[in-house]
């Protein structure tokens, strides 16, 4: 979405890095060691693999292609790369992934991307436009996301932020975040806590404990509140406890870049 932003170099006393690199590293930091993490391809997979090589060596990576505990030495290009199966603790069929491992709530963190995300963390990856049968843009669809969003103990969303993608209400609810607000997940009978963290190239948003509306709680270095407001399609609330993300360390950056380089 924000191709330009992704290559914006941020400079200072710290090593230079792009806003995409900041996003990946911020996402990696959010993953606690030892957690079981359901990983989609792209940004989530990058972040999870950085985490496993920095502070979270015992992070358990689960890919919907059927691998439990993959330990890839390069970034996979797809969720079904051979390296994921070859390095896994267990390789299983796809029905088993969803029925025996995801559905009963065995996964701590579901890591999702989004084409559209709304103020309550609902995710659209299906169609852009009001008419499902005649969409403006046909997106890939649901994949594993609806049940990942429902059943993981919590959900982290990693997505580049723009006013086009951060909307007041998604055109299509592919995966439920906090529905129409606080208490909606319970009403729907969704077992997991839903999106507890949205990590973008500008900062971090979290659901307000009272309303479940996403509020800005953290700014990446060099980003100002107004930048984030401008990249948000609703009247973004700012947490009174707004913090500033620590810039990537040289070690984090080198880990990320080595991984990316190895996957070319």
């Amino acid at each position, binding site marked *: 979405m924000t191709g330009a932003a992704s290559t914006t170099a941020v400079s200072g006393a710290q090593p230079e890095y792009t806003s995409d690199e900041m996003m990946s590293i911020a996402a990696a930091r959010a993953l606690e060691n030892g957690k079981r993490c359901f990983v989609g391809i792209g940004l989530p997979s990058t972040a999870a693999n950085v985490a496993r090589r920095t502070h979270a060596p015992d992070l358990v990576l689960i890919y919907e292609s*059927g691998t439990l505990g993959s330990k890839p030495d390069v970034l996979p290009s797809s969720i*079904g790369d051979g390296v*994921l199966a070859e390095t896994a603790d267990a*390789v299983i*069929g796809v029905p088993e992934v*969803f029925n025996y491992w995801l*559905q009963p709530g065995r996964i701590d963190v579901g890591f999702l991307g989004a084409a559209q995300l709304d103020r309550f963390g609902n995710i659209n990856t299906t169609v852009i436009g009001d008419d499902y049968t005649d*969409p403006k843009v046909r997106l890939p669809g649901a994949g594993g996301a609806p049940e990942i969003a429902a059943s993981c103990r919590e959900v982290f969303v990693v997505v580049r932020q723009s006013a086009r993608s951060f909307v007041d209400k998604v055109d299509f609810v592919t995966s439920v975040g906090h*529905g129409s607000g606080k208490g909606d997940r319970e009403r729907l009978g*969704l077992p997991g806590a839903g999106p507890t963290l949205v990590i973008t190239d500008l900062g971090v948003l979290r659901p307000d404990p009272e309303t479940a509306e996403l509020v800005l709680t953290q700014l990446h270095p060099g980003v100002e509140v107004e930048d984030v407001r401008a990249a948000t399609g609703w009247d973004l609330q700012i947490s009174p406890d707004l913090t500033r993300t620590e810039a990537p360390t040289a070690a984090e950056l080198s880990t990320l870049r080595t991984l990316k380089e190895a996957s070319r």
Partner: protein
Amino acid sequence: MADIVSLADGVGELVRDGDVVALEGFTHLIPHAAGQEIIRQGRKDLTLVRMTPDIVYDQLIGAGCARKLIFSWGGNPGVGSLHRFRDAVQHAWPVPLEIEEHSHAGMANRYVAGASGLPFAVLRGYRGTDLPEHTATIKWITCPFTGEELAAVPAINPDVSIIHAQRADRAGNVQMWGLVGVQKEAVLAAERSLVTVEEVVDELEPVAGQVVLPHWAVTAVAEVPGGAHPSYAQGYSERDNAYYKYWDSIGRDRDTFRTWVRDEVLAGRSATETTGDKEGVR
């Protein structure tokens, strides 16, 4: 006892106009060569079923073989959109494409029900999403013990399922390993099945993680080395990531796609012979 046939004969005998056809393979072991053979034989009005209609179905849809797609995720994995799929949905090109859309969990369970001889499957799914509003094959069912309401999806029972596997023996016992996706379920759910394999061997040496389909559960086997390309067959080939990127340039434009079909499919050259390398993509 499964018949050992050529790819052309296997597709010719087992895939018929108007059939419900599932080509499965979850990133790994995607039966691309069989898909292109279906294009070559000019099949029409197919209902295509597949969890992840990636390049293999972009090709079939773009070639006008399909009237309907039943799926859960339609993209070019790791690259972006499927342009032929989008063009069909957004502009009915080359023919209108009806869609029936599920989640992975729903599709996987539909195959499981199909393989199990059950009319439906139950899952914790879809709740709160907009999918049930647009997909008639998602309903709700009440647990007779707890009163809880859960999602129900109908079995998928294709007329024919096609998969790619590493090996078969001469009796037609099929062996695959690595990521095995929903291929076993797709074959068992189907009326007929065709398995393309890297090689037909005298004896299937056991392999860790193997799934074996006995010969009496498979209709036909065709030896098609490289038949998964640009997908891969663990132990035989690597995923051709460059080809997935290259496909974006082919699929993006109708004329480029038409030229590709003419030169690379109808001329009888299979995907195995057409690598990204040759096109100068790497």
